[in-house]
């Protein structure tokens, strides 16, 4: 679900400006968290994971209009702070390819970054309770659900902008209905996408835990070791 393909000039100015402020705040906080880490070592890893996210986004499930994101995998591999930075980089690259507007960069980073942060948190909260596959899959489904609710919230508040078209009164009821319809569509079709994404993320993390387990316990996750 994770990022909105809404182009520039459609969302109300206050909303996308708020998105940029929120993104700047979280990005600043993330960079502050990373200040004591040897970033020279982490930048190649950051680039590799952000590029893998972009490649995964190439895989579109056409029937339901969903594409894989690997944002939860990025959160698990990079940690919440660097995961948020990877989400920002992926969104900048997408905007530079004309895929998504520049003005929605803040909101898109917030959505994608929240998946990385939440995915990492749930994955490590479930430590020792479930095998790696199920931990990653559960983290993905929960995260996607929350991110979809955030998306519906953003669309709901963005619809209070009929002034753009000069028909405030006419649109008041229609907006409520269309947000309900939008929510029904994204939650129903999206849930199919979450299950597919969960299966893929779970399999990816299981494969990594078997082939290169040290990736699940790198320096950003001190105290956590690679589990099978």
């Amino acid at each position, binding site marked *: 679900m994770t990022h909105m*393909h*809404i*182009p*520039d*000039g*459609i969302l109300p100015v206050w909303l996308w400006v708020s998105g940029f402020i929120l993104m700047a705040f979280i990005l600043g906080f993330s*960079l502050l968290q*990373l200040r004591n880490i040897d*970033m*020279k*070592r982490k*930048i*190649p*890893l*950051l*680039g*590799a*994971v*952000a*590029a*893998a996210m*972009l*490649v*995964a*986004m*190439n*895989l579109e499930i056409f029937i339901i209009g969903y594409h*894989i994101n*690997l944002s939860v995998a990025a959160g698990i591999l990079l940690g919440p702070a660097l995961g948020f*930075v*990877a989400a*920002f*980089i992926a969104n*900048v*690259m997408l905007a*530079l*390819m*004309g*895929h998504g*507007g*520049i*003005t929605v960069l803040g909101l898109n980073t917030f959505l994608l970054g929240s998946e990385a942060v939440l995915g990492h948190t749930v994955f490590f909260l479930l430590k020792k309770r479930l095998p790696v596959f199920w931990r990653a899959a559960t983290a993905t489904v929960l995260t996607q659900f929350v991110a979809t609710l955030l998306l519906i919230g953003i669309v709901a508040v963005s619809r209070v902008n*009929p002034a*753009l*078209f*000069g028909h405030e009164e006419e*649109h008041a009821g*229609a907006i409520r209905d*269309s947000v309900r*319809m939008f929510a029904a569509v994204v939650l129903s079709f999206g849930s199919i996408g979450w299950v*597919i994404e969960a*299966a*893929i993320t*779970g*399999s*990816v993390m299981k*494969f*990594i835990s078997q082939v*290169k387990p040290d*990736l699940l316990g790198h320096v950003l996750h001190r105290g956590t070791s690679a589990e099978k």
Partner: protein
Amino acid sequence: MIDVARIDHWAATGSGPFHRASAFSKSLFVGLVVTAAVMSKNPYPLAAGYALLLIAATASRLPWSTVALFSLYPAVFAVLYGLSLRGGAWMYGLLFFKAVTPAFAMVMLIVSTPYPKIFSLMSTFLPEIIASGLFMTYRTLFILLDMMNSFAAAIRLRGGFSPGSLAKNSSNISKGLAMLLIRAVERATRLYAVMAVRGYNGSMAEARIGRPSRHDWLPIGAGTAVLMLVVVWK
């Protein structure tokens, strides 16, 4: 997703006036067109602006038909958004041109400016971690796309894709992505080792605005013209 390799080829090999303009002037151009799209409440000036950009792209020997095709991509989502608002032709027209006009400007920027130049400009205001991360992502992306294409060809040749079998396809795709991720991390680690030997100190993208060029008049003029159209034609 848009074909990144093709865009990169056009950006690196073109020699028209838009290619010769500085990255800063072209970024300013995109900013002006985005501002015009945000301000506009009338589809006609934006449609005129789109036509103007089409002429500028043709005159600058940019691949205008491909740029126009790429710019239509966000229109799909704009139209869906418009349909959900249940507006009339005016609203659909406005949403359509709000989507495609800035997208056209953005694609004009990326087909005429190599990514390292854009990152170099961004490095002047972005923190070092992000600037270097962008550069490293860009570098790794092409390697991964190539690896993904090879993986897709291999899996097809070995009968790994079964139309209709979601479980089997998902399983194969997952293994491919996992392998891709591991290979990407390994390559990145090796690259770090090579860079460290060569004296890498944490700084990768050179922070540079770039010198103004006499060709800057074209992007700045085109951007200002689109903005003026929106301001004057209400």
